[in-house]
């Protein structure tokens, strides 16, 4: 049972990681928490569902579609809710509040468009297949989630550290003013970052939707809160931190249920987070001074 529960914890954790990656990217560059990320995640799930159910596309095409749609949503978010505030140089809290507004708007919009009932992906879309590896039973969905989360993490890390655009993003994260002086079009870079983060949220939505096989308008809130916890645990704006933080939270939750009492699941999981933060207040991988990613 131990190995099976470990696999359960890893899959649950990797969905948390995927959600936290989006928070971390935006946190790293803009130093704000995008409260609408959970709802972008939910929209991604619905777009994927729509593509599979009505346009009958392959599930991987649906994932790509959900990424594109969520990226567009991210661009709108940046243009309408973040950029106007940045230009006026208002309080740091203002973008937080405006993204909360966006999240409420998106949730209610989804309730109107898609209705309150949860909907499922059709049986053919990945879900049914299972593999038996010794003592553990793993579904294809779980493998895909694990593969895509880790794959995205490595691609993201490589891209940020090696490519020109990645370097521009890191420069912007360091200081927007300096990046401007160096001739980087920071508005474009920020737009790109928000779009990228939202695309990650979108694909996370489809993957989570596939694994629990129920997509509904309020699914973003609880997932968003878990993502926020992981963001703090891993160290704000740190990609490795988001990844490992998610896995730690997932495994902690599953093992509390497996070897303790299920009622204390959240208490233990968040207790661990508090303990880690006592020892490392900057989070697992956060640095005390500047220099992110």
């Amino acid at each position, binding site marked *: *049972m131990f190995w*099976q*529960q470990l696999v*359960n*914890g890893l*899959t*649950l954790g990797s969905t948390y990681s995927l959600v936290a990656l989006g928070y971390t990217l935006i*946190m790293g560059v803009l*130093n*704000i*928490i995008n*409260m609408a990320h959970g709802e972008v995640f939910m929209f991604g799930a619905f777009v994927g569902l729509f593509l599979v159910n009505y346009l009958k596309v392959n599930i991987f095409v649906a994932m790509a579609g959900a990424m594109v749609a969520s990226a567009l949503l991210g661009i709108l978010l940046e243009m309408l809710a973040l950029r106007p505030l940045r230009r006026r140089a208002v309080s*740091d*809290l203002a973008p*937080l*509040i405006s993204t*909360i507004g966006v*999240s*409420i708007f998106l*949730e*209610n919009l989804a*309730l109107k468009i898609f*209705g*309150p*009932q*949860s909907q*499922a992906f059709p*049986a053919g879309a990945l879900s049914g297949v*299972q593999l038996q590896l010794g003592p553990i*039973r793993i*579904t294809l969905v779980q493998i895909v989630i694990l593969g895509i989360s880790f794959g995205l993490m490595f691609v993201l890390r490589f891209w940020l550290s090696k490519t020109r655009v990645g370097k521009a993003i890191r420069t912007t994260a360091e200081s927007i003013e300096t990046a401007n002086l160096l001739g980087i079009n920071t508005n474009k870079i920020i737009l790109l970052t928000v779009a990228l983060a939202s695309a990650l949220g979108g694909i996370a939505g489809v993957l*989570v939707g596939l694994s*629990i*096989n*129920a997509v*509904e308008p*309020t*699914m973003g*809130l*609880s997932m968003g*809160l878990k993502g*926020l916890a992981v963001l*703090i645990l891993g160290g*704000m704006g740190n990609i490795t931190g988001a990844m490992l933080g998610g896995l730690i939270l997932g495994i902690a*939750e*599953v*093992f509390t*249920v*497996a070897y303790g*009492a*299920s*009622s204390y699941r*959240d208490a233990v999981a968040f207790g661990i987070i508090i303990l880690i933060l006592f020892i490392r207040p*900057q989070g697992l991988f*956060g640095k*005390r*001074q*500047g220099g992110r990613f």
Partner: protein
Amino acid sequence: MKKGLTKWFTGMMIGTLLLTTAGCGGGSAPAANSESEGAGAAKIGVVAYLSGGGAAYGQSQKEGLDLAKDEINALGKVKIELVYEDSRGNNTEAINAVNKLINKDNVVALIGPTLSGEMFASGPIANQSGVPIMGTSTTAEGITDIGEFVFRNALPESSAVPQAVKMAVEKYNLKKVAIMYSSNNDWAVSGYKTMEQALKDNGVEVLATETFADKDTDFSAQLTKISSLKPDAVMVSSLYQEAALVLKKAREIGITVPFVGTNGFNSPELIKIAGKAADGAIVASPWYPGKENEKITKFVTDYKAKYNKVPDQFAAQSYDALYIYASALEKAGSSTDRAKLRDSLATIKDFQGVTGKFAFDEKRNPLMDATVLIVKDGQFTELK
């Protein structure tokens, strides 16, 4: 940087708080407040879970009520006007809705709210204001202990669940079972306690008791643990949303035993979400659309014609509730006197509804029988 970090942490805390509270606001559907029913129409307020996770329950209730209202008004003995408020499954919203209906809309009586937790929160207000309130789906223990003005035609869990458990124990020769329930839902916890008692009465051993929370989506840890204990059956007390996901996951990891549920299993949504995984789900219900009965056949046909689907238990009980109110209003002879309506409501007996023969006992709980159902090939069928 460090300063910025602290600032943002505080910001996040505030944000989270704001988000949770903001999430509760707004969204109450504008009441359909038409005066078209004319003077003398009795105004009945309805508080239902019309949006959010359990909206399918509220939607069914609204459909059942609308159908009953049209029929009653067409019969012409009494005129009824319905005013809807959305409680979003939230206790605070339910309180606000009840206050608004009583004080602003001046209703003569109330139907709802959908969830027992909401009733525990808002029932006392109706009771203090002297407005009769009838729950059609509030099945938890102690609902009518709130006060003299609180009624229900929902069959309490304490009567339905033991019937389902007993039937399942006899039918499948259950010796040891596992229990799962949602620990942050009043009604689910009450259902769990009833289940536990019923299992004890039948001499069944409980191998494990696992909890989860409303809105949870991952049950793999609990079910992996249960699977390793090899129970003869699993008992689940939760709303359909979580119940469906539990069933799905359970079948996925190879648990094939029957699942016995509380009232949350009692919705076609369970089958819709869980699909094939719902087969083997057992529940006791006062409502069974397949029963041979003229009244039921007519109701099912009319409902199908209007909404293009088979009515579920929530629609059926709401439909009956409005008819019960109608006959009480007729007896009371007034469409505005709340106290008179309460007294006449309390005397209702030998009422024939689509959920069977009905009477209120001295504690304003229903006296009625349940049928034990099992899901077979995606359909609720009678367990015999």
